[in-house]
């Protein structure tokens, strides 16, 4: 239930960020009345380096930073939404096609295992039925571990890239605020940013390794006929989820961050969209609290160039998020499909891979939110001490 709330919260955050920011409409009106010739002004900015980085991160996509900024400035939301929709559809379809192949292999192996095990029951006293089951289960475990390994690589690479971005930004940031001279005020911002980088490191190194071990233990548990590792796996799973939430809570609860976000939370608290989202039964409170926090962060990144930066962040982070989500749902669906025909240990092993992918997606989503907060704080700091 909680997992569903977080998914709903993240999806609504993305939608509200793209469509619910009141500043977009205001910016459009201001531009059309006061600055009819924003093209010339935009030409003064050099986006070459930025475009190069974006091409590295999104090689197959036609989006350019300048195009996104121009569409936002012109208020051409239809074309913009169409492009974003096409991009999301591409990733979703690509992952479905890729995931289908491996899911089919797992299904075949599990069904073949079930057939063989039942066939071997023709020999009641020799134990060949059990031996045959163990051999098939071990082959299935090898396949599932290689599939889950690829999912972990997706999450770790993306989290590492975000962490590197934060690390690269910090020295530049420290230098700028030192030159500005207002060191006392900047010190608190620096602490916040360092804390965020530390939590990102925790997600990337500690929690993803923990998730690996958790899934491995759940698969190994199926080799035993009795429940030998159930308590250990439950404890580890709960510990990882709590650690991820605690890390995120520590980042958001940190005083300076709160003092940056709270003024904007007040502005958006009365917002119509947030109120409507909060009225949804079951998930309303979660959506409202996540939307408040996310909108508060997004409100910091005010101008169109900043908004384009948020769009690029969403585009870059959407890929791995969708991939992990599709994998998680696919393997849960596969477990449900195998339940009538396979042994419960086989079903448990396949479901473990699904759970692992969904937990990776959750941790990665929290990492993306941390990066958004990081960017917001940096922008706010430049605005206040600059």
């Amino acid at each position, binding site marked *: 239930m909680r997992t569903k709330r977080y998914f709903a919260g993240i999806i609504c955050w993305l939608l509200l960020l793209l469509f619910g920011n009141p500043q977009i409409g205001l910016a459009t009106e201001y531009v059309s009345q006061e600055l009819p010739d924003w093209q010339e002004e935009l030409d003064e900015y050099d986006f070459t380096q930025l475009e190069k980085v974006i091409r590295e991160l999104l090689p197959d996509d036609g989006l350019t930073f300048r195009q996104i900024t121009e569409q936002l400035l012109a208020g051409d939301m239809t074309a913009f939404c169409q492009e974003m929709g096409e991009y999301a559809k591409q990733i979703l379809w690509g992952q479905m096609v890729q995931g289908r192949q491996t899911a089919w292999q797992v299904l075949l192996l599990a069904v*073949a295992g079930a057939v063989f095990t039942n066939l071997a029951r023709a020999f009641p006293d020799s134990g*060949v039925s059990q*031996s045959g089951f163990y051999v098939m289960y*071990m*082959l299935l475990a090898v396949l599932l571990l290689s599939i889950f390994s690829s999912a972990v690589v997706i999450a770790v690479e993306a989290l590492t890239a975000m962490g590197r971005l934060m690390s690269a930004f910090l020295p530049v940031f420290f230098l700028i605020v030192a030159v500005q001279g207002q060191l006392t005020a900047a010190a608190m911002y620096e602490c916040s940013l360092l804390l965020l980088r530390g939590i990102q490191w925790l997600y990337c190194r500690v929690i*993803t390794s923990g998730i*690996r*071990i958790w899934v491995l233990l759940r698969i190994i548990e199926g080799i035993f006929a009795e429940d030998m590792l159930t308590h250990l796996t439950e404890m580890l799973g709960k510990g990882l989820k709590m650690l991820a939430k605690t890390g995120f809570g520590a980042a958001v609860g940190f005083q300076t961050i709160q003092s940056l976000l709270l003024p904007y939370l007040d502005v958006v608290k009365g917002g119509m969209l947030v109120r409507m989202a909060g009225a949804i039964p079951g998930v309303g409170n979660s959506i409202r609290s996540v939307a408040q926090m996310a909108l508060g962060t997004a409100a910091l990144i005010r101008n169109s160039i900043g908004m384009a930066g948020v769009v690029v962040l969403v585009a870059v982070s959407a890929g791995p998020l969708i991939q992990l989500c599709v994998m998680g749902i696919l393997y849960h669906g596969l477990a449900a499909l195998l339940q009538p025909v396979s042994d419960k240990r086989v079903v448990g092993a396949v479901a473990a891979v699904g759970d692992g992918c969904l937990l990776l997606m959750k941790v990665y989503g929290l990492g993306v939110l941390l990066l958004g907060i990081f960017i917001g704080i940096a922008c706010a700091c430049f605005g206040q001490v600059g």
Partner: protein
Amino acid sequence: MEVMTVGILGIAAVLLATQLKSVRSEYGTYLILAAGILIAFYTVSRWGTVLQMLKQCTEWLPVDRVYVSTLLKMIGIAYTIQLCAGLCKDAGYSAIAGQIETFGKLTILSLSLPVVLALLDTVHVFLQEGL
């Protein structure tokens, strides 16, 4: 109809062996052995049909053919051991039957060791990537 043939063959062998037991018990044992071998031929022909189907399925499976042939060998070993041990028990030599069964189980265990090693290797690589 082969099911009827095998059933009648088995019952006839048992009835004759019962009669021969009172006269010459060893002839009863030979009769049971002969009937067992004859029924084994019928069983092997049935297994042939099943194996053909399994071989077709293995082409779709995402595992090395070596592992699938290991599984099929396990079935063959189990059947052979069961037949031989059963005949020994019928003849009254359960110690020999036990020895045959133990050997069969150890053979099955040794056949499954490469799969265990493959799993351990995968786990080792999996953990090394993460830690």
